């Protein structure tokens, strides 16, 4: 493998609080160093990538909440199509939800998913293990054996554990392995049958609503259970002011809790479903503007630990339905970086913080070694121009699924190249 030398790039490594112009050398698939003296020439036979002083080189992004169709729903997305979409978005590590068919509630399946990621040569798959058998919310899955097989954390994916006693037991048992439990923060009985956030818009559209408080109610319960049991808890795609306030306060109290949000919840609000656009039907549903602003504030103050794409591939036929019966979820791999950069361009968060939310911070929640530019680490890299404008077009995105809620959104920031273990897997010279 040829060495690769990145020159004239803006190196950003949030794990090491590094943000400076510089060079980075990749040798044998690992990062050889970021402190190569300017006077020193490129190694023999090295490929030179010149950033022209403007391009940013950062760790390959770590996306901690991704649904892929495989196994079981390959018509929506396969590992390979998801990998293509991921690397087009600068993502080199994805944590994959277990609610597939079959469910990832068996150690062999967790191993299989890891291997399927390796086969692509483009991404690492970090499989989530099912928290309960078949993600049905009743019987505990083999958390210890799944963890040994490489399951990174435990969740029932889009289903919250409804029963308080079951959740208490899960947090308690998982503590024996110091395993992380990831909860979908929505009270299932309040959410039942709903497809939009309760309020004026849902009322005008005649859509069954889910109260925004369904999130805070479940978060409040689970924070209390985490405090009682000492378990490690993470909330995925948090989207309401009230939910974030609870998490902020719990963190201040020393509860072992973390959370992520997804780009739709800080970039869009419920008005985008206004003409029954099913591509904007998500779970949890898009929120009122005040909640969106609260998510932005929680990104800025550090309450939110990670931004995850919440990529959820749907087939066109899954979405070509009346709003209430259409599938929920949107793709997000290709747009993860650019929508996050919109927060930087808007002045809400700095570039380093934005990239931290996409690299080392999700990696640290998952206790993964990915997401840094440290010397000796695998050369998983993302090269992007923070200012290049483009327009998201459903139907023209890399990968298979096209159900983006950002269709038509003009964004600034484009991934130009992605490297996995030192090999270019996206961009002009992708081998």
């Amino acid at each position, binding site marked *: 493998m040829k060495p690769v030398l990145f020159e004239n790039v803006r190196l950003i490594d949030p794990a090491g609080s590094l943000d400076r112009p510089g060079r980075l050398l990749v040798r044998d698939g690992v990062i050889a160093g970021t402190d190569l003296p300017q006077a020193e020439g490129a190694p023999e036979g090295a490929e030179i990538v010149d950033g022209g002083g403007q391009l940013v080189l950062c760790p390959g992004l770590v996306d901690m909440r991704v649904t892929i169709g495989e196994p079981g729903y390959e018509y929506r997305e396969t590992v390979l199509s998801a990998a293509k979409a991921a690397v087009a978005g600068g993502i080199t590590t994805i944590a994959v939800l277990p609610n597939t068919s079959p469910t990832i509630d068996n150690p062999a399946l967790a191993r299989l998913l890891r291997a399927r990621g390796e086969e692509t040569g483009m991404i690492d798959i970090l499989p989530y293990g099912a928290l309960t058998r078949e993600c049905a919310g*009743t*019987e*505990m899955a*083999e958390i*210890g*054996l799944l963890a*040994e097989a490489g399951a990174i954390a435990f969740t029932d994916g889009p289903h919250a554990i409804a029963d308080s006693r079951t959740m208490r037991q899960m947090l308690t*048992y998982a*503590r*024996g392995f110091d395993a992380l439990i990831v909860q979908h923060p929505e009270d299932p009985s309040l959410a039942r049958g709903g497809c939009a956030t309760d309020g004026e818009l849902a009322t005008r559209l005649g859509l069954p609503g889910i109260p925004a408080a369904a999130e805070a109610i479940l978060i409040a319960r689970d924070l209390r259970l985490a405090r009682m049991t000492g378990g490690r808890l993470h909330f995925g795609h948090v989207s309401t002011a009230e939910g974030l306030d609870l998490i902020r306060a719990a963190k201040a109290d020393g509860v072992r809790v973390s959370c992520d949000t997804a780009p739709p919840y800080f970039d869009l609000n419920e008005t985008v479903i206004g003409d029954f656009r099913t591509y904007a039907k998500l779970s949890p549903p898009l929120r009122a503007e005040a909640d969106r602003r609260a998510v932005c504030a929680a990104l800025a103050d550090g309450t939110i630990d990670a931004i995850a794409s919440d990529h959820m591939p749907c087939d066109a036929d899954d979405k070509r339905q009346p709003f209430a019966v259409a599938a929920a979820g949107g793709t997000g791999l290709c747009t993860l970086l650019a929508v996050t950069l919109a927060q930087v361009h808007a002045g809400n968060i700095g570039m380093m913080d934005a990239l931290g939310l996409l690299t080392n911070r999700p990696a640290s929640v998952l206790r993964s070694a990915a997401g840094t530019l440290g010397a000796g680490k695998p050369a998983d890299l993302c090269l992007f121009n923070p200012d290049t404008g483009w327009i998201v077009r459903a139907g023209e995105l890399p990968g298979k699924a096209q159900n983006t809620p950002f269709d038509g959104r003009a964004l600034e920031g484009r991934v130009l190249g992605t490297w996995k273990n030192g090999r270019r897997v996206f961009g002009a010279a992708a081998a």
Partner: protein
Amino acid sequence: MSERGSHGSNVFLTRPARHLLGVQGMHPARITPFLDLAEHYALLNRSRKTPRDLLRGRTLINLFFEDSTRTRTSFELAGKRLGADVVNMTVASSSVNKGETLLDTAATLNAMHTDLLVVRHSQSGAPALLAQKVQASVVNAGDGTHEHPTQALLDALTIRRHFGVFEGLTIAICGDVSHSRVARSNIHLLTAMGCQVRVVGPPTLVPGAIGALGVSIHHTMEDGLRGVDVVMMLRVQRERMKGTQVPSAREYFRFYGLDNKRLALAKPHALVMHPGPMNRGVEIDSRVADSDQSVIREQVEMGVAVRMAVLDILSRGGDGA
């Protein structure tokens, strides 16, 4: 009994207890006479020369509201070896689980002039309730998840026969501590006798508050077994192997089962104990259960001796003593 003479001045022995309901709060001076006398009966059992006239004319009723073969048989043998008239009453727990019916049972037993009543019940505290109402001496043969005092005594006797003393021993009690009356009685007894006791198990099967009983809590076998003198395994009910306590038997065995590798973390000649019946391949590997370090069969032998000692001592302290 000359063994008891050494405690002759102790206030606890001036008035023998009428019942044996639990070990909690029992002073070593109360515990030791049971062990000493049981040691004596263990010898007599081996030579088949037990005092068959000791309890002649006394009536022992084994009142079992919960299925049991081993404990009931052990008490039955103990009673018969001392010459008591032994009657077994097994009552399906489903039909008798209301306090009122239990007290009716007590009235019936009084009418029969029972001297010794051995009670097993699925509800914690049921033998204590009976003890308030019957004239007989009550022996708790296991109540719910509360206590199983004769099991703790026989375990202690087995340990004492191997080590001679209790002080300085470290004992790991492993498995389903939450649902175990054996664990509770052993914790009370062994801590009272000066042992260091550890409990080891998944957090779902170890109550967080058990530390208040004077034990240390460990959630991995590797951590809990290091350097111990005795590994005491608990039976894990099959029905806990799915649901929300333990996901499967294979996961349980993988992380909490006792195999040779884990046993090697204990002291070289550490004892392996189990109250029985064992789930081989779930909480204990057959190679360990059948190894030289296993004293599981000796526990059963000591069970009869301990129960003889209990019946003997209680029968002296009975009515109006």
